[in-house]
């Protein structure tokens, strides 16, 4: 790295005061020179130059550093806990490493937690049920989200920004409060039942609250923007003249949709589905607040292991396995994105 031409390097440190600074005011270089007057910036800048890193190197390293610090390190801690044993202590698990004679480190790996995951069908059923709930809600979110995104791209140009804002706006309110609001709508004497009863559509209140249906509604509502935004992005790029050409050649609109529009938006569809499926799989808040006690999802199971059982090692093992299960769609997503870039 040190042998490469360093044309992208930060200029050598010069102690210039602002009056003698050259170059157009407000340029990046100008800002850099001004900032050099401040010691912390100068130290960092000097340290970077001395270490022989190029600006590009730092730029490339930053996301990796971020992942290392905030993803890999916590994961390793969880992995470590998953191999320890439950104990009545603070924190409530045994140490993995122990010094023997002050010279050797003894490592005790306890595989019992993983063994239990395989022996007890509860965990597998929870995993499978989560996949089922996440899968169905992803499909339903697509059904709701696609017409929405399509409608947005067909809207007059000057409306689009406002429509986009309307999709994003709910994010300004806490997720928890929005899910709580659904309790008020779905409960036995909630808004929905009152409305339907008064309209005479039903004569007995619908039991939606505390069922899987409520969980589906909650997930579809909460993750809809994650589906709409990538769909909108891919649909917006579409060239309208393609549809005109299809119509000129006698293709009916529905056929044109399946032959032209949908294939063009396929990457948006896939991206949206992953963005909904992955977080929905480990969802805890929605099944806890809206679901009934019979709603078995891995997020809730993990919570129970951690809080009710105080069994940090076992819940860590559940989390590690959940991550392994998630790696498959995440890697597929990555592959798909790469393909999208080269396409």
């Amino acid at each position, binding site marked *: 790295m040190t042998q490469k031409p360093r044309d992208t390097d930060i200029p050598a440190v010069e102690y210039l005061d602002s009056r003698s600074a050259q170059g157009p005011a407000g340029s990046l270089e100008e800002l850099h020179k001004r900032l050099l007057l401040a010691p912390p910036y100068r130290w960092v800048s000097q340290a970077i130059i001395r270490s022989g890193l190029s600006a590009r190197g730092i730029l490339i390293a930053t996301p990796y550093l971020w992942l290392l610090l905030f993803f890999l390190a916590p994961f390793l801690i969880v992995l470590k806990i998953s191999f320890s044993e439950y104990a009545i202590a603070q924190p409530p698990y045994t140490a993995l490493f122990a010094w023997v004679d002050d010279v050797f480190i003894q490592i005790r790996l306890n595989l019992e937690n993983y063994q239990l995951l395989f022996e007890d069908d509860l965990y597998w059923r929870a995993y499978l049920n989560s996949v089922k709930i996440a899968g169905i809600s992803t499909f339903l979110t697509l059904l709701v989200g696609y017409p929405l995104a399509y409608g947005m791209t067909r809207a007059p140009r000057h409306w689009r920004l406002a429509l986009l804002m309307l999709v994003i706006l709910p994010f300004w309110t806490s997720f928890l409060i929005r899910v709580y609001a659904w309790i008020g709508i779905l409960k036995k*004497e909630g808004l929905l039942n009152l409305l339907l009863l008064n309209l005479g559509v039903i004569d007995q209140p619908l039991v939606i609250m*505390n069922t899987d249906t409520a969980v589906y509604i909650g997930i579809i509502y909460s993750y809809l923007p994650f589906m709409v935004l990538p769909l909108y992005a891919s649909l917006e790029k579409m060239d309208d003249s393609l549809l005109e050409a299809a119509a000129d050649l006698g293709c009916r609109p529905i056929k044109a949709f399946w032959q032209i529009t949908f294939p063009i938006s396929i990457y948006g569809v896939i991206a949206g589905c992953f963005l909904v499926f992955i977080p929905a799989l480990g969802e805890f808040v929605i099944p806890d607040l809206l679901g009934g006690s019979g709603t078995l999802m891995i997020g809730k199971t993990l919570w129970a292991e951690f*809080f009710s*059982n105080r069994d940090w090692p076992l819940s860590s093992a559940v989390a590690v396995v959940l991550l392994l299960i998630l790696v498959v769609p995440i890697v597929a997503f990555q592959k798909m994105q790469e393909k999208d870039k080269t396409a």
Partner: protein
Amino acid sequence: MKFLAKSALAAVLLAGTAAPGSSADGVVNVYNWSDYIDETILQDFEKETGIKVVYDVFDSNDILETKLLAGGTGYDVVVPSGTFLSRQIQAGVFQPLDKSKLSNLGNMWNVVSERTATYDPDNAHSVNYMWGTTGIGYNVDQVEERMADAPVDSWKLIFDPTVLSKFADCGVFMLDASDEMIPAALNYLGEDPDSHDPEVIAKAEDLLMSIRPYIQKFHSSEYINALANGDICIAVGWSGDVLQARDRAAEADNGVTVNYSTPIEGALMWFDQMAIPKDAKNVENAHIFIDYIMRADVMAKASNYVYYANGNEASQALLEPDVIGDPAIYPSEAALKTLYTTTPYPPRVQRKVTRLWTKVKSGQ
């Protein structure tokens, strides 16, 4: 929802009055159960002592214990229940109280202190805040409408599937607390409610599974509002919480009458204990706070507000007649004898118990 908004607002206001994260003298960080204090007590304490109270709430022992075991909670006074306290003392979470700083210890009631000593030998780490029973809260009219001779004073109402099934359409809630519901089931079966024998505990599983289809939800705080609003018929809940539901319904004048019964077969008697974590930063203020709460007039005010009995004998003279005179709050001598206490499960048994409880809750 009204209560939720109220308590959320109160929490925000209380949190807002103190400098966050401040560990200097003049602050005490308290972590107590939700809906468990007359908030004017906190204001009075601040006025009298000049110590700001940062008051935060939880609704399950599990949440509290997880925080305590992780350490560094920042709380100076916490209020776990007896069985949890016992395990937490074993884990080394609490510091012994400096009894020379607790001038009001003489107010405590030995009927309660003797029992809490089984969780905390010599009551070295804790002082009783409130105690109560785990029994049945029900909507009087709705229950009568569905079953005129419903056994409301018996666990039959809950554990007999033919009886409970009559109320499934109206809504039945149960506490999400395995350490309370399994003993209740065992007690109904005539077994030792405090049994740690997996084979005996398995009998509770069969019983609970037989009534599972008729239970809508397992939750430890939602039933207060659900009962008060008339959303549900029956809830297995904590005495004072059900009585709060009763009063909220009466206040709202919504035509809902809620009642609480301590079943004749006996019920769990539990204790919530004030204790100071080892890593508390304001130990001095924590003692001042605990001592203040132990004052007869303060404790009486608290019980008059939340409808829970306390372990403070001196406060009894100052209790409202509808508190001290209500057998649902202060059971008679005879009823007191039917109440049982439990001890914490050892780790191996605990895992089986939680597994059993997950199975019961998910119904599969």
